[in-house]
Every structure is written in C-alpha cells, then in structure tokens.
C-alpha cells in the first residue's frame, strides 16, 4: 500500500504545529542544565523564564514564539518508498490547512524578497528539498521553520587550503557578529568543504543534530568541542544580556572537495525548532523529534 498524499498533507501540517508549540526534549534538557551552571544572575533568571515559557506553551497548546518563520521541509525519499499522489502539492495543502486551522492563528511571515510584502502563501512555499535514501521503504520528513531572529546571521566564505586557525577564526567571527541578537543559547551549525551550496546544506543539517551528539570523525568532534568552549567564553549569555550559556551545541559536518573550501555557518535560536517523522509504505508514522 503506498503512502497517501492525504497522509503527507496532514502529517506535515501537524509537524509545523508541533515545532511552534514546544521545544525539543534535548533542548529543554540543555537549558535546564545551563540553569544550574550559569554564573550570571540575570542569565540564570533568563534561563528560568525560557523554561517556564516553553513549558507553558506546551501545556496550553500556545506558540512559544510569535515569529513562526516560513515553512521549510527537508525530505529523504527511500528508493522503495511508494507515494500515491503529488507530494509537493500535499505539503502545500498541509501548510494551507495549518494556516486555516491552527489555534492561536499565526501571523503572516512569508515575505517577498524584493517588495517585502507579507502573505501566508507564495510561489515556492513551503520550501521543500529532497534527498535520496537507497534501499529504504519510507520517506523521512524534517520540518524546520526558519525565522529572522537567527536566520539573518548565517554566513559563508570560501577559503583556499585553509588552516584550522582560519576556520576556527571565521566561525568565531560569525558568532561575534550575531552576538546578542540570535536569541542565545544558540545551536551553531557549520559546513566545511564540498561546493558553495553543499556547504550551506551541511551547515543547516548540522543545526538539526541532537544536542550532545558529536560528529563521528574524532578530528571534527574535537573541533566542535573547542568551538563550543570558546563560544561559551565570549560572555553573551542567555538572550544576549550576559552570561556563559551562549551556545547549546556546535555541530560540524564536512565534505571532501577541492582546494577551495567553503565554510558555512548558521544558527538556531534557543527554541531550536525541528520535528522529524518517518512514514513507511504501510502508513506507519514514527515521530523522532
């Protein structure tokens, strides 16, 4: 039995709502740990109200943040997955259903890049990208709505045979540029290598990794640890008003390429919006986040 487009429509709408009304469990655990380790009194208080705000939102089915971002879905399609109907149309329909039905209603956030006119629907919305998974009979959908607060600080630079010094310096400069404004404690995603576009994709995917899970490559894992320690020594703290809880995680993905090495850096704010489900050919839905 194939996966029905109606099921994709309802699941993708639900995923967006989940991502708006609660924070991931690992993120809550990291913030709770920070509340016990933060040395700045204002930072501790800010962490406490972050936890209270997200708990209240979850309990009362309310939005954590009013900036619901624009809809972004990343889909991994298994080579043996069978889909009945039009997948893109189903996700567009799911977002339209969400806009019509979600309580409380969401604000218009989809913005024309040139006129800045806002709307709920627009050509190419939701933004959907696809990957392929060999020998799999499922589709895996990640929903990661992106808003301005953290989205605006992403950056990419192309280096030529960079030293580790240069890479570390560039990531730190990006973090300092975002400073107080990306709603810390942040998750920092870094993509190193490949092509211009692939480095950005790796950085984005890195922000979706669970807190505390390191890159399996020991050299990359140690880079993550060094950067996390350095970022938490900058002093920006929760909401950027001071403290030593500036980043929850630094996640780095790498790819071989050529001598030109793109380094892409992007951020998630403390809400760290992400939900992920897998739908099998038999229609079984497994929610991972």
């Amino acid at each position, binding site marked *: 039995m194939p996966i029905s487009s109606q099921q994709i429509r309802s699941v993708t709408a639900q995923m967006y709502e989940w991502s708006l009304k609660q924070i991931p469990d690992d993120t809550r655990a990291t913030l709770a740990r920070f509340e016990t380790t933060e040395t700045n009194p204002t930072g501790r208080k*800010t962490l406490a109200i972050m936890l209270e705000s997200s708990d209240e939102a979850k309990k009362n089915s309310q939005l954590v943040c009013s900036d619901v971002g624009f809809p972004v879905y990343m889909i991994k399609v298994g080579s043996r997955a069978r889909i009945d109907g039009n997948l893109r149309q189903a996700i567009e329909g799911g977002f339209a259903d969400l806009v019509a039905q979600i309580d409380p209603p969401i604000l218009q956030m989809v913005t024309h890049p040139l006129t800045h006119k806002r709307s709920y629907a627009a050509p190419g919305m939701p933004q959907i990208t696809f990957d392929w998974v060999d020998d799999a009979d499922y589709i895996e959908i990640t929903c990661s709505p992106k808003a301005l607060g953290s989205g605006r600080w992403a950056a990419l630079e192309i280096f030529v045979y960079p030293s580790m*010094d240069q890479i570390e310096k560039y990531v730190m400069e990006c973090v300092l540029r975002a400073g107080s404004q990306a709603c810390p404690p942040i998750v920092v995603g870094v993509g190193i290598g490949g092509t211009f576009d692939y480095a950005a994709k790796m950085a984005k995917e890195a922000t979706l990794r669970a807190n505390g899970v390191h890159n399996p490559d020991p050299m990359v894992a140690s880079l993550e640890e060094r950067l996390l320690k350095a970022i938490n020594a900058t002093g920006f703290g929760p909401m950027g008003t001071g403290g030593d809880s500036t980043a929850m995680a630094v996640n780095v993905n790498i790819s071989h390429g050529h001598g030109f090495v793109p380094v892409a850096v992007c951020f998630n704010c403390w809400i760290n919006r992400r939900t992920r489900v897998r739908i099998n050919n038999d229609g079984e839905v497994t929610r991972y986040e």
Partner: protein
Amino acid sequence: MSELIGQNLKRESRVHHLTLPITKEQAQDVAVGDMVYLNGEIVVTIGLPTHQRIIDNAAAGEHLPAALPHGAFFHLSCFNREREDGSFEALYMNPSTSTRYNSFMPRIIRALDLRMVGGKGGLDAESVAAMRETGTIYLSFLGGGCTLLARAIEEVAAVDWTDYISQFRLVTLKVKDLGPATVGIDAHGNSIYTSLARDAQDKLRALLAQMKAERNAAAPPANE
C-alpha cells in the same frame, strides 16, 4: 563605562515594578542588568513602514496614540484580532530584533521624548546617544516568551493604522506586571550590548590561541 557595566553584571540586579508613564528621574534610577515589571499602557509594533509613519506623523503633528509621547514604545509583535463588535483582542505577543529599526529609532526617541524602548538584541550607538539625551531605557524581553508576555495583557486599548497587517499596526496595550524584562541600555548611555560585544572582541585573540593550544596538545597539526 565598561567597568560600571562589569560591576552591574556581577551584582544581583535590582527589580523594579514601574507604573507607566514613568518620569525621567525614574528612568535614570534604573541600571543595566536590572529587571523590570511594567504596569500601564505600552505601544507596540514590528512594522518597518510603521516606524516611518510615526516619524512623518510626529513631524506633521498628525495623529499618534496618546500613550506614545513620553511613553513606552516596544518592538513587540502582537496578534490583535478584531471582534464582531469592532473591539480587539490580543492573542499573544513577543519581541522582535530591535536593530532592524536602528535607522528610525534616534529620530523617534527624540521626536516623542520616549522614556522606554525595547524588544530584543538592543540598539546601535546612535540610538544610545539619543536615549542618553532624552533619558530613555531599553528593555530586553524574552524572545520565545509568547505565553509569559501575553498573560500580562489586560486590554487592547487602541489599534491604530489597521490598513497594515496585524503585527505592523500600532497597538496600545494595557498591561499588568509585564516582565521580567532586562534593562539592556540605561538612560546614562550604558549599553550591555556594546559592552558585551567589545568584551567578546577583546577576548577573541586569546580564545583563538587557546583553541590552537588545545589542538596542538591533542594531536600534531593536521593541515599545516
């Protein structure tokens, strides 16, 4: 200035329960790092065109909300829904990034002699200079604080410029115990944001050296 802010960061912050509108003297008694709860009327918007319209109307002497002059003007995004009887209800609110409005804020702060501005992430040096002239403080609200901020809303007192989408309108809200908000910039020109950015920049060289030392201690350089 940096030393003063350093002291403020290290001490336990004071908590202020302020009823709007506040006087210049009250604004000057508040220091960076303090926490504030607000009672009374605030005016909110996150619309860029709204900011230009405030400037234009102030210059022309045209309509502005009564609570705006000498008042509290915040970059808070508010979903205000019209009821059948024409009145409005506020469903939730949440701060936006204030630096987006840097080019407007010095003129608005001076033209309206504001006592409070706010949102999240602070404002630039030109705004801080205007705030020092007028005696204005900046409040940092919790980004992602929809539920906590919304429960402080008692009433939508006015919704101006309904030709804009909801969050771009100029909304006057009556609030009770809105907070806690952190004082990010005080009326004496002290900015936590300027101070933290400068401190982080000052530390950068040492942090990079530390990372290099840790790397070299763990393993021989891999790509040098």
